[in-house]
């Protein structure tokens, strides 16, 4: 038995923790790209902002895409609800609200991450410190994940938290791919230039997949392989297929525990149908951009249905 409000708090708590980590990773990938390619770094920072899905809000605050403006906006600007600082604040206030559902270890790791982020991001970022700060943010979220997975009972509380993690993560991976989808399309004329290599690596890096990619494919970067890896690979923890495998698991447990299936279960089946192994060519045939856009929409719908079906409000 769980309060609807508690389920809601758990779901958003983990969504925002996931967002903190994703934001740090996106900035990290952008930093990397800006360091390796000095000629068009403004473009790169602009695409970082696009990947983060906060373009409009950014433009209202800044005129230029630079390392300073972008990292400030994505990491510490509290007027940006998705910045690391805002997200950790939201995550913690949700955690506080559902505190009775969390183990002491989990709560403390979130509270400590909040304290660390607030301290680190209290004053404007010195670019020389940026790599260190990004590392620290990722470390804090890793600690939360460790505490959470190591101590939480696998029950409905765990399931709603899992749903938050993977809905957010799927959204993030899909968005990163969508921002750079044209880089992955074989038809564009400059394919094969060294420029693309950087771009491809950047995509992989922003989901921490640049090393694991090589373990799986050994060869050079190939657009279809990258897309296949991030969309359909079931063993890649940030791929859409993996996220939906985890979402499916949690929704199946909830259906079993409560003895009741809802609309969200139907949506889940429908989305999973689009993520069948070996279907990457047909995805490209439909259009990668169209595929991703539809996915992002369906993923949102699933989130809303979960909220409604389990009486979050």
């Amino acid at each position: 038995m769980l309060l609807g409000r508690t389920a809601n708090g758990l779901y958003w708590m983990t969504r925002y923790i996931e967002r903190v980590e994703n934001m740090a990773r996106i900035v990290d990938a952008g930093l990397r790209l800006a360091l390796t390619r000095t000629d068009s770094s403004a473009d790169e920072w602009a695409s970082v902002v696009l990947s983060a899905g906060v373009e409009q809000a950014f433009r209202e605050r800044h005129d230029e895409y630079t390392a300073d403006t972008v990292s400030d906006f994505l990491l510490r600007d509290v007027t940006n609800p998705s910045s690391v600082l805002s997200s950790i604040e939201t995550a913690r206030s949700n955690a506080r609200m559902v505190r009775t559902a969390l183990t002491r270890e989990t709560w403390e790791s979130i509270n400590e991450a909040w304290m660390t982020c607030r301290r680190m991001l209290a004053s404007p970022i010195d670019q020389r410190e940026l790599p260190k700060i990004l590392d620290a943010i990722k470390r804090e979220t890793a600690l939360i994940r460790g505490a959470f997975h190591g101590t939480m009972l696998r029950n409905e509380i765990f399931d709603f938290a899992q749903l938050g993690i993977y809905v957010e993560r799927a959204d993030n991976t899909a968005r990163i791919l969508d921002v750079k989808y044209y880089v992955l399309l074989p038809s564009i004329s400059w394919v094969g230039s060294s420029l693309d290599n950087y771009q491809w690596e950047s995509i992989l890096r922003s989901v921490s997949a640049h090393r694991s990619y090589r373990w799986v494919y050994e060869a050079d970067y190939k657009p279809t392989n990258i897309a296949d890896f991030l969309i359909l690979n079931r063993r890649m923890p940030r791929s859409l297929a993996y996220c939906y495998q985890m979402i499916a698991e949690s929704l199946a447990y909830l259906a079993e525990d409560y003895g009741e299936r809802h609309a969200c279960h139907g949506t889940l089946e429908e989305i999973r149908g689009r993520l069948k192994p070996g279907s990457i060519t047909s995805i490209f045939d439909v259009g990668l951009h169209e595929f991703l856009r539809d996915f992002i929409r369906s993923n949102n719908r699933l989130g809303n249905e979960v909220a409604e079906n389990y009486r979050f409000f």
Partner: protein
Amino acid sequence: MVAFDEMRPQGNGLRHPYSGYDGWFQSQDPARLTEKMQDAERVFRRTGITFAVYGEQEAAERLIPFDIVPRIISGAEWRRLTQGIEQRVQALNAFLDDIYHRQEILRAGRIPRELIAGNAAFLPEMIGVRPPAGVYTHIIGVDIVRTAENEFFVLEDNARTPSGVSYMIENRETMMQLFPELFQMVKVRPVENYPQLLRQSLSAVAPRSANGAPTVAVLTPGSYNSAYFEHAFLADQMGVELVEGHDLRVVDGHVAMRTTQGYKQIDVLYRRVDDDYLDPLTFNPDSALGVPGIMDVFRAGNITIANAPGTGIADDKAIYSYMPEIVEFYTGRKAILGNIPTWRCSEPDSLKYVLEHLDELVVKEVHGSGGYGMLVGPTASKKECEAFAAKLKAKPSNYIAQPTLALSTCPILTEKGLAPRHVDLRPFVLVSDRIRIVPGGLTRVALKEGSLVVNSSQGGGTKDTWVLDD
């Protein structure tokens, strides 16, 4: 003004309850103790044991300073205290039942009628309502001060929603983490079973309509409330749901909470929301913190609300001065625990006296709490006194005055070693089919040298309170 020190009273050497502790303390390295003090702060910060201070935007969450020197009470002292407390809470509940039914005490002329009729803390909605098991105030925090070896006084009866019990438990937890060896040398009675006792106590007063094991829940105003940590802590420790008003609604004549599987009936609601906000249909219509219609369910006897609405009339500061009469009226015996002499400013003679002696007295608002809106005459400036006198003259019935008591002191650890500071004590009392008092309580300590204000909102701290197993 010389205060009684509970460890080393002037000219009398070490008091017996402290002998075990003192032996240990003398053998400690001062540097290590300072380190332990910092450890304690880290523990509190990490676990998020914080409180919010109203009116402060910055630093919205603060720690209540914790002092690592325990306040120690002997078993014999404690037994005497508990007798007085039990008598007092029995009288409080009897008074509430009487005042909302036959009002015998008014008929007998023991307290003036206008004190009840014109009092905002008296809820006409409660007239003729008898809560399940006949208990009105289930959880009481009695504030007690000491002035000498054998002199204890009740400063306030908190019969509405007393807070601070989580600090009692966490302070002990912290002390046991910091100084495990100390607890092997000195036998201290445990306080950590309070949440279990609370749950048993609440379950015992469930309405008859509860099927099987009653469902208990804690109602909080939300995570922005100053005592939210405590609400979450108690719900967690009792293993019950922590609910907010918008989680609840009235379904088929019962209060129910919205769960991921639909609505589930609640039998006992430990509410930490004030009367005013409890039911927008009965009280403040703008309240979003309460449950529309809960009062109807309550009147129908289908839910236990702890504490019941309207208990504020029993701990009202204007009623306080009549407590000795109230105790005697309902228990037939003299009050074991004394009251502090109190001037009711509503009475012209008293007002005159108070205005003439403002610099010696503590003046409090009748309905105030938390140390807000009070004047401590001896430490106030002339200007503050004059400003307060104006308020007092404008609305005398809003104030009571008490002599500035020489509150007892206990040592705290400062940079220069032990130093005495004034303390009070809030033991927590649970009333159901019987009365349970956990051996200990919350000791609040004024950290500023010479200060008599122990409220956490005014810079007070807390200490672990030991009742010895002797």
